[in-house]
Structure formats: C-alpha cells, structure tokens
C-alpha cells in the first residue's frame, strides 16, 4: 500500500506557497526593518480598524446582520440541532470505524443482500 500523504504534506505546502509572496509583499511595501517600524505599523493598522469601525454607516447594519446570523448558526443551530454524531456518541476513532462498518455492512437496504447474510450466518452456525 502506498504511503498516505494527505494533509501532512500537501496542506502546509499549499499554505506556504500562497502566504510567502503575500507576506513578502507586505514587508517590502511597508519597509519593516526595525521594532519601531513594527510598532508604528501595528498602530497604523489599529487606527485603520478603529477609524473604519467608527465611520461605518451601512456597515453597522451589516455587522448587526452578521452578528445575529452567527449567533443563530453557532449558538442555536449547531449546539441544539446539529451534533457531530460520531464524535459525540463514540470515544475513539476505532469505535467510530466500527460503527460505520456496522452501518455499511448491516444496513437493511437490500433484500438479496439480507438473504445472503442470512445464508452466511446459517452456514457459520
């Protein structure tokens, strides 16, 4: 069996490829080379956000919509109605695997398959 790679290599590589030029552009453009410059930069970023939020007009309505929506989605919908069933019902990945295997092997969707299982069980007995 080939070695699984998945998120362990592909994911950081993709993030690195995208983030490096973005951060590089930031640093080059703003000429950050000292701690003082960094403090100035942070102050400017803070001021941008502060003034931006203060001067919002339409944005206030939109932030209200976002806040209400996120509260409904995460505090009502997620907590009350959408538990992650495998995560909440089982403690280990092994138990979760077994639960899915049980469901996929024994699900009574197909008469022929049920007959096959019955025959198999009778033969084993």
């Amino acid at each position, binding site marked *: *069996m*080939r*070695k*699984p*790679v*998945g*998120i362990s*290599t*592909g*994911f950081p590589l*993709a*993030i690195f490829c*995208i*983030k490096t030029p*973005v951060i590089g*552009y930031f640093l080059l*453009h703003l000429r950050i080379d000292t701690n003082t410059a960094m403090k100035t930069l942070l102050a*400017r970023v803070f*001021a*941008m*956000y502060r*003034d*931006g939020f203060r001067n919002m007009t*339409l*944005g206030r309505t*939109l*932030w209200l*919509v*976002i806040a209400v*929506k*996120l509260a*409904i*989605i995460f505090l009502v*919908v*997620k907590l009350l*109605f*959408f*538990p*992650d*069933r*495998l*995560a909440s019902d089982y403690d280990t*990945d092994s138990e*979760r*695997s*077994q639960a*899915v*295997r049980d*469901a*996929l*092997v024994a*699900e*009574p*969707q*197909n008469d*022929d*398959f049920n007959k*096959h*299982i019955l025959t*198999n069980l009778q033969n084993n007995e």
Partner: protein
Amino acid sequence: MNDIISTVDWSRAQFALTAMYHWLFVPLTIGLALIVAVMETIYVRTGLEKWKGITKFWMSLFGINFAIGVATGIILEFEFGTNWSNYSWFVGDIFGAPLAIEGIFAFFMEATFVAVMFFGWNKVSKGFHLASTWLVAFGVALSALWILVANAWMQNPVGMQFDPSQMRNVMDNFGEVAFNAVSMNKFFHAVASGWCLAGTFVVGVSCWLLWRKSNVNAARSSLKVGAWVGLAGIVFTMWTGDGSAVQVAKVQPMKLAAMEGLYDGKIGQELVAFGFVNPDKRPGDNLEAIKCEFALPYGLSVLANHDPNTFVPGINDLIKGVSLTPDGDTVNTVSYAERITMGKAARTALLDYDRALKAGDEAAMSDAQARIAENFKYFGYGYLDKPEDAVPPVGLTFYAFHIMVYIGGYLLLFFIVAIFASRWKTSWLEKPWLHWVGIISIPLVWICSQAGWVVAEVGRQPWVIQDLMPTNAAISDVPASAVQFTFWMFAVLFTALLAAEVSIMLRYIARSSRKNIELSH
C-alpha cells in the same frame, strides 16, 4: 424502511436547500470582487476621481452580499456531521484537507484584505489598496477552488485507497485529488460563471440607473466594465463547460445520458436542442423518450468526444454494458448487473473482514481485504436492488441542463449587445427596451447558475460518491422528523437572509441613485 427513505429524502432536500441558498451569494461575491478590482485598476491607472466613486459604489454592494452570504456554507458542514455521518467518516481526510485549506484562506486572506478594501481608503497608498482588492478577488476564487476540489472528488473519486480497518478512504496522492481534469474544469467553470453572473448584475443595475436617468455617466461606465467582464465570463464558462462535458462523458456517462434524455445511443448521436421528456419512459421499454424533439445532428458525439463519428451510450446501453467502436463493432463494458454483483461481493468481503477483525484472524482479514480491493471500484452498487436504481431523475436533469444552455446562449448575446451599445451604438443606452432587458436578465442569470448545480448534483444521483457510496448508505440513523424540522428552520432562516440582502441592496441602490455616485468618496 419507510422512515429510512424519509430520512434520506429529507436530508437530501435539506442539503439541496442549504447549498442552493449558499450558491445565491457565492457567485456574486466571486464575480463582483473581480469587477471591483478592474474598476479600481482603471481608477489607479487613469487617476480619474469618478472611478473612485464608481468603485466604492460597487464595493458597497459587494460588501452587502459578502456580509449576508458569509458563513452560510458552514451549515453544510454541520449537516455532514449530523445527517451524513457514514459519508463524512467514509471520505476521511480527502474532504477534510481541502475544507481546512479553504477555512485558512477564508479567514486570513479574505478577512485581512477585505478590511483594507473597506477601511483602507486614504489610509494606505493607492497601490497597496489596489493590491488588497486584487488579493480579495484572488482569495475568494481560491476559496472556491478547495470547495470545488472536494465536490469534484465526489464525482470522480481518485487519489485514494480504501482502508477497511479505518473504514475511510485514505488520500495517497494530493495532486491527483486537487488537480485532476474534473476538478480543474469544475473550478474554472464555476468561477467563470461567477464573473458572468456579476457582469449581468452590474449591467442590470446600470440599466436600472439609466432607466431612472440617474447617474447616467456612472451607469454607462459601469455597464461597459460589467459587460466586458460578463462576456469574458460567459465565453470562459462555455469553454470550460465543453471541457466538463467531455469529462462527464468519461467518468459519469449515466449523467450525460440523463442530461440528454438518451436511452439508446448510436454513432453520430444527435443533441436534443428542444423537446419534452416523456415522464412514462422507463429503461428497457419501447416508449418514445423525447417528445416534440428538435435535434442537432452529431451534436452529442461532438460535445462528448469532440468527434462526430463516435458512439455515445444511452441509459439502456450503460445498464446492459454495451458500447460501439467507430467502425460499428460491439464492445462489452461492465454491465450494471455485473457491477451490482461486484458491489455485493465487496460488501460481503467487508462483512467477512469485520468478523475476522473481531476474531483476531489476520489471515482471514488479509483475504477479505484483497477481495474488497478487487471489487471496490463498484462498492456502492452493492447497496442497489436493481440496475435501474442507478439511473438519476432524467426529467429534472434534462430540463435543468437545457435551461442552463438556453440562458447561457442568451447571455452571450446579451453581453455582445451590451458591449455594442456601450461602444458603438450609444443611442441604444437611452432605449427603455435595453434597460428592461438588462433588468430582467438579473433573475435569469441566477436561474442559469442554479440550473447548473442541479445538473451537477441531481445528475449524479444516486451517488453521493460516484460508484462507491449511494445516498441511502451515506445517511445517519436520525429520525426523519428531526431533519424535517431543521429543513423548515433553514428555509425560514435563509429566506430571511435573502430578504435582508435584497432589501438592503435595493435601499442602498435607490439611496445612491439620488446622489452623485461619482462624487461619493
């Protein structure tokens, strides 16, 4: 059993509802981000202040859509964990990796640079602001990439191996999962359709301003940009749509047959340009499939294989496992009855694996695992009762496909007329007929966009993962009543969000129309 069927149907309906509402917002975000970036580029390059006002006007509409649409997709992930637990476990890290990357991008890239876009005017240099706007446009498209990679894997599962001990598909080739022909066509098709949708939106709103004789100069300038971006979008959408059709013919031939209502294929297969699906038609009977048919000779063979003299299989051919060479010789493929036998063999092997695992019999586990691997290609067919169960809803797929194509063709003409009017025949921009065509095109482009997703998702039924997992095996053991309740809850929530979006947008457009858009900066 009835409860299970009901749970499956309600879960499907809920997922469709959530995904379709989510897709109302997403393409406008993707396309409008690009249009705003183009407008700001014109502003920076020309130095004309009117373009700053125009950019800020459309940026505000982008902001409204972004704010209302953001996080509506997260509910789909909730549904995976609750309603589709077998599926979400079975797909393993293949789904997790792209979604995690999407989360990182959505949070860091879009959140950071959207703030600069809105709060950074006169705070950062023009160049830096422009770069931020382009990075937002780039970021939203990149977010879409990872979602579409995940979706494409469900249509064309590659780059993984099934591990029965974990009961998961383990990714063994990230590049194959992310950058196969199906995912790339799907990505560019969806993103380009977003440009087309946003282009129509900009042209339509501009037409409304022209009809009101308000901000005429800003409306004409906006219309020109919207029309060019829209034209580029529709041309690219058609090109990638053609690529998608070739891929569908290869990996989902049953979907292609359903899109065309084709039961018995032939060499040099025609394309149905117009017709009605016979609702009584079933696989294997002798009834007429399409009524009042008007067809383009060789059209489907060209669409599917880029060759007019090739065979395109219909539903009956696929079920029987029959194909024809260009010379007319019959070639046997794997019939659906054989696939069901192989699927049942894989399921039986999984049952044996389970028993061996519990008994600690490693030799039996190894033997069962080999039998699973041998038949895994058709694992999902083991959950079907008969070959006809693998046929998607033909009527819905057929009509959605044809609606998408008709409106797509109309939009190509629409953008050509809009460009012609804005560049060479400016007197047309004063004509009410053009204004109303523009305004009416706004709902049409959304219908086209939604129809595209109906083709993609209904056409692949009964598969949640092509050939590996049918919808009825993917479902959790949840009561139908619970899913039914949350379905209606989402229907109310999303309708309220949509009403809020439309209301806020209309009020903003109306209020802006009373001011000078070019000077509002």
